[in-house]
């Protein structure tokens, strides 16, 4: 099976990926942010969050971003348009990340085909069980060439770790925290990522949840192939007050945020 992420295995240092919520702080600004990420040399790939009303695994920052995006009327079609825009600017992999219900609501096969034609590379659905993946997703993903990333966390059993590497066709998403996206660090990351090493097999390993600074990234060098920065990126964008929202300003802030990451990643 083709894997857009094999390049991760060949780089020596952990590459940087950025998560942002589609439609946040509004649709226009999100489009500009994607343009920035598409061309930014520090960013190797992108996760585009599909806003959901009840984001169980997300901390306050991404919850709030989803709420704002939904209040501005962001739909799945908007998500796909943003993906298309990103794809028209670059070849970097683009993952769509979200929750199961909106995907099932559209219909799995339709969703996957729409995502593929919008130029998405793969999916991350943290609340999708393996059985449902096998039954509802595996064959349509296979035939469209879209990949899937499963999560491992500090509470994962050995069996679950092996399964994640067996099943993931994009990369394995290592949850670098006991907690939610954006939570302050609550664990010994190094120990957890050391524990994963014996299970590594084919799929690259990418760390996310609570990673916010270049030194967080440096601390994982040699243990993971990539890191995902989400909440910290969204926080850096600043106020979302519509009256004060200045797209240029938002993009500048994003640029500032990414600057110190330059020397860390490949």
């Amino acid at each position, binding site marked *: 099976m083709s894997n857009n992420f094999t390049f991760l295995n060949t780089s020596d240092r952990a590459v940087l990926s950025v998560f942002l919520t589609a439609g946040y702080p509004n649709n226009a600004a999100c489009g500009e942010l994607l343009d920035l990420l598409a061309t930014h040399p520090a960013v190797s790939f992108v996760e585009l969050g599909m806003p*959901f*009303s*009840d984001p*169980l*695994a997300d*901390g306050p920052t991404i*919850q709030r971003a989803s*709420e704002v995006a*939904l209040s501005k009327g962001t*739909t*799945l079609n908007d998500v796909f348009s943003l993906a298309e825009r990103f794809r028209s600017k670059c070849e970097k992999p683009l993952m769509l990340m979200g*929750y*199961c*219900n*909106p*995907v*099932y*609501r*559209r219909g799995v096969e339709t969703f996957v085909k729409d995502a593929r034609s919008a130029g998405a590379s793969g999916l991350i659905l*943290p*609340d*999708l*069980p393996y*059985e*449902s993946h096998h039954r509802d997703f595996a064959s349509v993903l296979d035939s469209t060439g879209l990949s899937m990333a*499963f*999560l*491992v*966390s*500090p*509470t*994962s*059993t050995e069996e*679950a770790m092996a399964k*994640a590497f067996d099943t993931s066709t994009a990369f394995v998403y290592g*949850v670098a925290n*006991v*907690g*939610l996206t954006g*939570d302050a660090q*609550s664990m010994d990351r190094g120990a957890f990522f050391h524990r994963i090493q014996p299970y590594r097999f084919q799929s690259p390993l990418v760390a996310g949840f609570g990673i916010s600074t270049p030194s967080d990234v440096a601390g994982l060098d040699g243990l993971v192939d990539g890191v995902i920065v989400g909440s910290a990126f969204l926080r850096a964008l600043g106020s979302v007050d519509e009256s004060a929202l200045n797209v240029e300003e938002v993009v500048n802030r994003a640029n500032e945020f990414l600057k110190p990451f330059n020397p860390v990643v490949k």
Partner: protein
Amino acid sequence: MHHPIIKHGYYGEFGGQFIPEMLRKNFIDLEAAFNEAWGDSKFQRAYSNLLRDFVGRPTPLQKAERWSERCGVEVWFKREDLAHTGAHKINNAMGQVLLALRMGKRRIIAETGAGQHGVATATACAWAGLPCTVFMGAEDMERQKPNVERMRLLGAEVRSAQTGSKTLKDATNEAMRYWIAHPEDTHYIIGSAVGPHPYPMMVADFHRVIGEETKATLEGLGLQPTHLVACLGGGSNALGLFLPYLDDETELVGVEAGGEGLDSGRTAATIERGSPGILHGAKTMILQDSEGQIEEAHSISAGLDYPGIGPLHSHLAATGRLQTAAISDGEALEAGLLCTRLEGILPALETAHALAWTLKADWSGHEMVVLNLSGRGDKDLQMYTSRRGHNE
């Protein structure tokens, strides 16, 4: 699991475990611990003794003479309002606290809507000497103030959920998030027969004593009910009554909160108006829009104000075993006031929905109805008194 109705955590096409990996191990451990405890006669004995000595079970099964006369059919009340803390919720809270102690958990969390489950859990935790945090929607804290105060007196911390509709759905999200961040030492006592497997069946099992007592009493009298009626929030009081009757001929009626009306867009009638989807880790009937975003539920009764329902109820409704109906805010208030005058029982607004249905239904007069009088209405005093003022 021991229930023939469950296959791999599914009840027909409903149920499952749609949870992030961070919670997976908690559910593996919980299912194993519950199965082991439920099959252990020592656990069963400890639980039964608690239900007798602390909760005050068995609760009475009372023939409601004047209510029957008004409805034109024989109606019996299963008096869960007389259980300690004033609602059925305590059965589940005591069972799960016993389980948490057995699992060596050191902290309890819960979500609550009307506050009855929060009060029950805070009570169980005071009894067990465990610290307790209850998540409650900011709007519900406002409309169920007495229960907030009760929880605090019992030593629980009440945290307000400020997201979304600020009601039960959002309190449940917050509780699950807390559990993701504290997976090792904490047990989450979910308050209804909802959520990922094994919660729906476990909660139902801790309530099946309601139906078992009913069945034993009626069989002792040589009686067989034709109808069992209960209100549906998440569905725990209903399943508690229904479970021992699933294989009988008895008709099962679940009464949903119609809110301002089924077509008003302000309703909590999940089975009547919803569609299959995934909420709080289970596939079940939910209120959602065309994009798969969860819609806000609306009911005057905080305990029914939830855009989901237990997956087993979805299955029973889809297969025709469970009949559903919806009762509006106004109908529920009137039925609650009427019951207070006719029977001397001030019912919870949740329960009042079930009562209203017995007033409205078409009876031949030969039926025999058992209604789960799931809780008392002290917490709803303000709502009832303002309705009465409005009527006069």
